């Protein structure tokens, strides 16, 4: 049971307390829980919050419960788009979702990153996929499905826009964006499951926030593509 008891309507709101769905003060409708309100928001302005009909306000992190702060911080960095030069790219990149990779780092442009993604070992990618999927059953077993759906919903609303390819017909940019969204989704689910930032996808989520795409091991190198130079 969420710490925020039901029997009260909750609304997803912006900083000024306006309903995200209508841009007006919350009035009719509402959801039975803070997570339910977030999951029903058709748009998000950053940072979102929830407001109860009784006037109680919760930040995104608090509304999502354990690990919610890590989700909020992750998305906050994504929106802020920190410069990649401020990161220790090598350390973050070698901390892959399947464990440390002892490979030389190769930072490349977008087109080369896409080309080299074809050389990524399928069995390694399958292992990442498996690790990615492992967060959901943990959360479901803990009775936190609603929080997971809300976190993913908000994350995808934010990330789909932030990572929107500049040119609608740019195939490479769509590939990179899809990969980044896939990794971010995993990071969000794991942040909730782990209750913080100590999880397999946290280092790569840092890279994504800075406009990088960790492609993975390809032809004896660990490839990271620069998607959005800052």
């Amino acid at each position: 049971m969420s710490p925020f008891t039901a029997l009260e309507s909750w609304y997803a709101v912006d900083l000024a307390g306006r309903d995200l769905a209508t841009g007006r003060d919350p009035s009719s409708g509402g959801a039975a829980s803070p997570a339910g309100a977030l999951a029903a928001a058709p748009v998000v302005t950053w940072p979102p919050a929830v407001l109860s009909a009784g006037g109680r306000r919760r930040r995104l992190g608090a509304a999502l419960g354990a690990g919610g702060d890590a989700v909020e911080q992750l998305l906050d960095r994504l929106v802020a788009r920190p410069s990649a030069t401020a990161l220790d790219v090598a350390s973050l990149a070698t901390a892959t979702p399947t464990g440390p990779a002892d490979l030389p780092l190769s930072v490349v442009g977008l087109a080369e990153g896409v080309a080299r993604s074809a050389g990524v070992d399928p069995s390694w990618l399958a292992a990442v996929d498996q690790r990615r999927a492992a967060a959901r059953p943990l959360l479901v077993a803990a009775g936190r499905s609603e929080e997971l759906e809300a976190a993913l919903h908000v994350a995808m609303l934010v990330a789909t826009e932030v990572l929107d390819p500049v040119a609608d017909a740019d195939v490479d940019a769509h590939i990179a964006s899809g990969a980044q969204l896939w990794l971010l989704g995993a990071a969000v689910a794991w942040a909730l499951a782990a209750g913080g930032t100590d999880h397999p996808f946290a280092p790569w989520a840092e890279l994504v926030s800075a406009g990088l795409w960790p492609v993975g091991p390809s032809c004896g190198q660990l490839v990271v593509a620069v998607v959005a130079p800052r």
Partner: protein
Amino acid sequence: MTPLTPTLEQPFNGEVADAEEAKALGAEYVRAAGKVIASHVRNELAGAAVFDEPAIALAPGPKDKWLACRIAMEEYGHHLKFTKLAIELGLDDPTAGPILSVFDYELRSWPEFAVLKAIVDLAEVVLMEELSSCTYLPLRNLATTLLPEERFHVSFGKRRSLELVADPAAAPLVAEAVERLVPFTLPFFGRSVSANNELFRRWGIKTHTNDDSRAAFIRRSQRFVVDELGLPFPEVGVRWDGGPA
């Protein structure tokens, strides 16, 4: 103020700036715009869930996996953007209506997904092109905004279908998908005799009959299937009155 009573011969051709103006115009206008918006709310979500999400797992390699992921997110995003219009217009529950029969479908292979994007999303393009001149400006603007993404999905589907049809192992799957998907897509445009379509045309939400739109889709998809893929086009008619096409 005298209420407007547009007819098929003299349809409403004004511009309605927002939900308040729509409501001021009358319940019938809200119903017309609302039905089209609600249909997109449901069908964009169903499309993302039934076609695009399963395709992520079916993708043969990393590049296609990421592309499928991006496309799935975009389709889900379209659902949310139409949901916002529905809320602004005060629609009760836009997800409550029926889902189009085209979504009663199990995606089985990557070639099928490629053809699906080329063909089913082309139907979406035909519909959105029509909405990009509709009288309800929020809907017009949204359709205009979303069209480049829908066109990208179609171009992705066409590109992949062309690659696959050149591969002797995949070509039969492409041909089978064309046979299966073209008839499935036709109900997307609604029945030939449709009170809803008349309502939409009287209020300038749409300008074409359902059969006109279906004919445009058949023309365009046939050009792709026959001229580019070099495959036969299923025998289909422009009319649809319910049931299997």
